[in-house]
């Protein structure tokens, strides 16, 4: 089964995402996540914990970078193809 790797660049973003996840406000659940966690990581290659989790999981991983991008959308800024808007993830 495919797992989601969700990475937040900042600790505040991660905290917000953790709260949303805990209260089932997101389109995915803890069970869908790689390592059952949202990660505080800027880049896969520079984060040892993300590398550990990727090493352990043998299946396909979909990567979602930086969970909080809604402010960019509100300001009309484009975001990268693997970035996402929080609004799109809310149930």
């Amino acid at each position: 089964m495919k797992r989601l790797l969700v990475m937040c660049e900042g600790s505040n973003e991660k905290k917000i995402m953790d709260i949303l996840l805990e209260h089932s406000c997101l389109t995915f659940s803890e069970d869908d996540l790689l390592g059952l966690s949202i990660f505080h990581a800027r880049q896969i290659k520079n984060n040892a914990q993300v590398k550990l989790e990727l090493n352990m999981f043998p299946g396909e991983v979909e990567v979602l970078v930086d969970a909080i991008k809604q402010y960019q959308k509100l300001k009309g800024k484009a975001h990268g193809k693997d970035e996402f808007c929080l609004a799109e993830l809310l149930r």
Partner: protein
Amino acid sequence: MKILKVIASGFKNCADNFEVSYIPTARKTAEDKEYELQEIADGLYVFSTIGVVGKNASGKTSVLDLLSVCYDILGTFRVNKKEYSLDGDKLTIYFYHEGNIYKYQTKLKEDEISDKVLFADQKITYKKYYKTNVNSIFDEEGYEEYPLEGELPEDTSSVFFVMKKLGRRAFYYGSFDLGYGIYKAAFMAQRIIDMPDRVLMNIIRIFDENITSLKMVDDSNFKLTSCGKTEILSDKELYSRLSNGTTKGLLLYTLVVLTLLEGDDLIIDEVENHFHKTLVENIISLYKDKSVNKYNSTLVFSTHYCELLDLFGRQDNIYITKADKKVNIHNMYKDYDVRSELLKSKQFYNNVFETAVNYEALMSLKKELK
């Protein structure tokens, strides 16, 4: 209570002022604080994991033995004689406990009659921990003598006056074979924390999916259900029935659960022994994940498997041991100039730390066999 630093002189074959620190010295990034470090007091961080690497017979186990003795002192205030001599060893242990930094110094002396080790020349000093002094916690300045409220038997450390109560501080999973007793040890560990049977079964399922139930009947008999068949087996029979990896994994993972739930530290000698690399990675990841490691447990392990070090986000929690006339310990961050973006394992194979296996010795053996 958390150990911050240990300094030993005369311990086994280690050089004098042999030092192991749990305190980070390199820059702490926000990601490090999330995974690599634990905040035990405001601004005071210790490592989530510590790795010890080196050649065979370089002194890795000596580092773990030293820490084990220190945990004994801080937990039970007593040390039993070991298979190696502790006579004349001098120890200095810095530890954090309830808002204070303590510095405990003693000289060990083996009792001629009992199996106990006696404590001589004991001294405890302490100072209040303030965030503003986080960079000078080991400086002599500010330490004052801790008042000792009475006298204790010689085989009891005066750390008792600080800690007041007996307590486990760490578990040591050595590379020695526990034999049939390993199952009893695992179930005893399960009972300490009242670990539900389903958690134990989760552990067993990691190693052997055919087993659906394992229960302790008495100290040396166990009820095993495997492939739909239930049997009562003695520990000896169980030892021959289960694989070596399942047997060792049962105890190790039970200790992992126990230490994570209780906030104790876990010391593992040669973590890769008998286990798939993924299992070792899983153990490391559990100690780094604060949603699991909620009570500041630290994993200290030795390994020959230097690829594991690529999974460390820092360098200052990696120690390299080398044996010449004496065992010396080096910190990867303090003692080597290794660029952080380079793979640590590659540096090992490039012999940057002088830990490579002696190639000439290997070829010499091959030549003999030709």
